[in-house]
């Protein structure tokens, strides 16, 4: 299995992998994709890869909103997402939930659903989200005239867990000192998993892992971790690696925060989904007792240790209050521990690459 096959899956939408089924786009890693799959649909993460404009999106949103939302809204308004059968949105953050308000009025999809995601992972919050997932289930069943039985859902959960297990074993390999995959290629694989059928993806990844040891060794001089919010463009990782470092791990919502935690296959499937999605490595929106900044910090610290990270690059989309604030705390805390850090503000559509390159280069020199 060649790495290029994964790259085909992360081309601008719709890719060849989105042709065989009805496709449902979702805005956030808190969407229980297993349920969409169990309804016989293909869940993909909304993205703006390859799109270079925001003008129409800007006329509805504002220059104070993040460019991920402005880009995807621009695409929706320009009919580039008309291949979707539906969109599921959530109250992930202020930008995404309000982008949804605009989509509803200006370009409503055939199927649409909004999930109210708690900021806690308490028993009451898990119950709340369980009810939300049941509502989504009922909505999918009525809209697509299908029954999502517990058996079907359990099968989907198993499939998605398998995907997570495979991806985690890819992460495991990146702990080693002798690396046979760059961060760029690894990230391409992970993103591909958000943009294609899991059955095909799992098969591709299984074959890739089987031949992993035959791959050539990667030359690098420093091991870097990338922390942030929404990053789905390999160019940012490539920029870092072109300067001689290798990105060995991450903590963001297209990376480990998407992959890490399993759905308990022994429990009632809907409750298990609710629990997994609320208790997973938390996004900076979460403020509950067991899902807050302390948990994120502990996770990042363990990543640094386990992956032998030399330095951490914090990226944040401009105007992302949540990630900006979390980075602020994390950078101070890591500095106290003597971990070198770099903070990079960025726009979703790649810009200012040479300036970014200079900053990363200077950072890598510090690590050296």
């Amino acid at each position, binding site marked *: 299995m060649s790495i290029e096959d994964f790259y085909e899956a992360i081309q601008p939408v719709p890719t060849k992998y989105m042709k065989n089924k009805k496709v449902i786009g979702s805005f956030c890693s808190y969407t229980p994709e297993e349920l969409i799959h169990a309804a016989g649909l293909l869940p993909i993460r909304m993205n703006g890869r390859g799109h270079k404009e925001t003008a129409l999106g800007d006329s509805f949103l504002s220059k*104070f909103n993040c460019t991920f939302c402005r880009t995807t809204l621009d695409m929706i308004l320009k009919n580039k997402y008309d291949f979707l059968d539906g969109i599921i949105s959530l109250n992930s953050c202020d930008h995404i939930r309000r982008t949804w308000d605009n989509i509803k009025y200006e370009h409503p999809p055939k199927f649409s659903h*909004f999930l109210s995601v708690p900021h*806690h992972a308490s028993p009451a919050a898990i119950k709340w989200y369980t009810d939300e997932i049941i509502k989504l289930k009922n909505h999918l069943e009525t809209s697509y005239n299908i029954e999502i039985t517990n058996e079907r859902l359990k099968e989907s959960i198993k499939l998605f867990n398998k995907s997570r297990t495979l991806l985690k074993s890819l992460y495991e390999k990146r702990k080693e000192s002798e690396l046979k995959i760059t961060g760029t290629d690894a990230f391409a694989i992970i993103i591909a998993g958000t943009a294609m059928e899991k059955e095909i993806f799992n098969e591709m990844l299984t074959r890739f892992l089987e031949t992993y040891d035959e791959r050539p060794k990667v030359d690098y001089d420093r091991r870097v971790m990338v922390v942030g919010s929404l990053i789905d463009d390999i160019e940012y990782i490539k920029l870092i690696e072109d300067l001689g470092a290798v990105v060995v791990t991450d903590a963001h919502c297209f990376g480990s925060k998407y992959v890490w935690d399993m759905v308990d296959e022994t429990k009632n499937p809907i409750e298990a989904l609710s629990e997994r999605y609320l208790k997973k490595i938390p996004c900076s*929106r979460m*403020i509950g007792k067991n899902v807050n*900044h302390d948990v994120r910090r502990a996770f990042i610290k363990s990543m640094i240790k386990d992956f032998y990270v030399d330095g951490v690059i914090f990226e944040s989309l401009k105007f992302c*209050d949540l990630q*900006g604030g979390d980075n*602020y705390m994390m950078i101070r805390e890591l500095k106290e521990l003597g971990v070198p850090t770099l903070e990079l503000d960025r726009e979703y559509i790649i810009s200012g690459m040479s300036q970014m390159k200079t900053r990363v280069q200077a950072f890598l020199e510090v690590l050296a």
Partner: protein
Amino acid sequence: MSLDEYKVKYELWDNLRQFFTIGRNLIGELGSAPGVSFNGEFMNVMVDYLNNLYEAEKNKTPIAMYNFCVPPELFYAADIYPLCQEIGSVALAIANTQTHMGYIDYAEESGLAREQCNAQKIWIGATLQDKTPRPDMMVYASQPCDSTNILYQVMKNYYNIPTFTFDIPYWHYDEKNEFYDERTLPYLSGQIKKMIAFIEENGKTKITFDKLKTTVENSNKAREYTLEFLELMKHKPSPAASLTPFTLYMTLMAAAGTSGAVIDYAKWCRDDAKEKIKKGIGHISENYRKKEEKFRCFWVYIPIFFDPMIFSWMEQKFQISTVMDMMGYQMAQPIDTSSEESILTDMAKTILEMPMARQSRGPMEYYLDDVVKIVKDYQIDFCIWGGHLGCKHSWAVASMMKKLIQERTGVPTLVFEVDTMDSRVVKGKEIRKTIQNFVTEILQ
């Protein structure tokens, strides 16, 4: 009292005390100044509230910091001093002593982004320099915005004190149904029960039913007067100064649950408005010679804190009464005190109905419905939306809302950018020019 005597302990708090105390004394000497909403009764509430912090420290009363989407009644019922962070930040911007801009700069120099909201950055900047009182515990809600959510995490992280958080559910919109769905109230009242346990444990105190009832009855009195007053504001011409609804909001945010000044102020507002309506006089005709109210404005977003005199300038120059603003629009009703359960359920409603939170934590339709209702009920001629730069959720629907308000009511909306707490971004002079152009070109 000399200026130095106000400088007791914490620069931020001391400045506020100085501003409100001097303001109150001045108004006491001069009588109420034309067009100024900050009258003596309002100042009384604020001065009491600010002074009580030092009393609390002296008496070793626990101090709980909370955000403006948490009602203060439970703290009062527990004999805990409720320190509303936003009162510190926002009121300092209103006082416009310039020190608040130094705090903003300090917070940004420490690494917080420029686009993060100053309603928290002012406090953080001052705290990093040890210029604020230190709370013993903290309570905050996930509403109304991401900035609140994350910057309270920053404060929690800094203080390292026991913290309780409210998860406010995102509401699904259904125009045929009640504002609250069947799941939301028990979800929230369950959290209030936990909050009570939290403050009892960390404040080493006990909230008895009698104490809770008395506190809530106090806040009910203030709220009843406030709601009556807001009804009177529908009268044409407006019987009260622009921003009076906002001042009532501020006093409830700080002191709802106490007896005395907060109730007196709300009653005074109600009685004064009633009296004016009875006599057939409006606020503008009473305060500006030979002038009558010409236009009625709804200020769709938060007021310009650093330049509240803009509102009296609008009254004087164009005879515009800003009869309502988003923060002043109170929807929460008095609480049923018949049982502990009814108190908690109604308190959950109060949280959901908090001004700004109500409009910000659900789909745009709730916001739009409120604006449309206000435009109709208060006979509004135009809306002004001074979009605060920190409020990304609001900016994301400003364009759509402007269009829909026009479509549904026929009323135009002026939208412009401003940082309501930092005059360096857009100056008051520029805002006046923008309003002047709008009024001149669109309305005259």
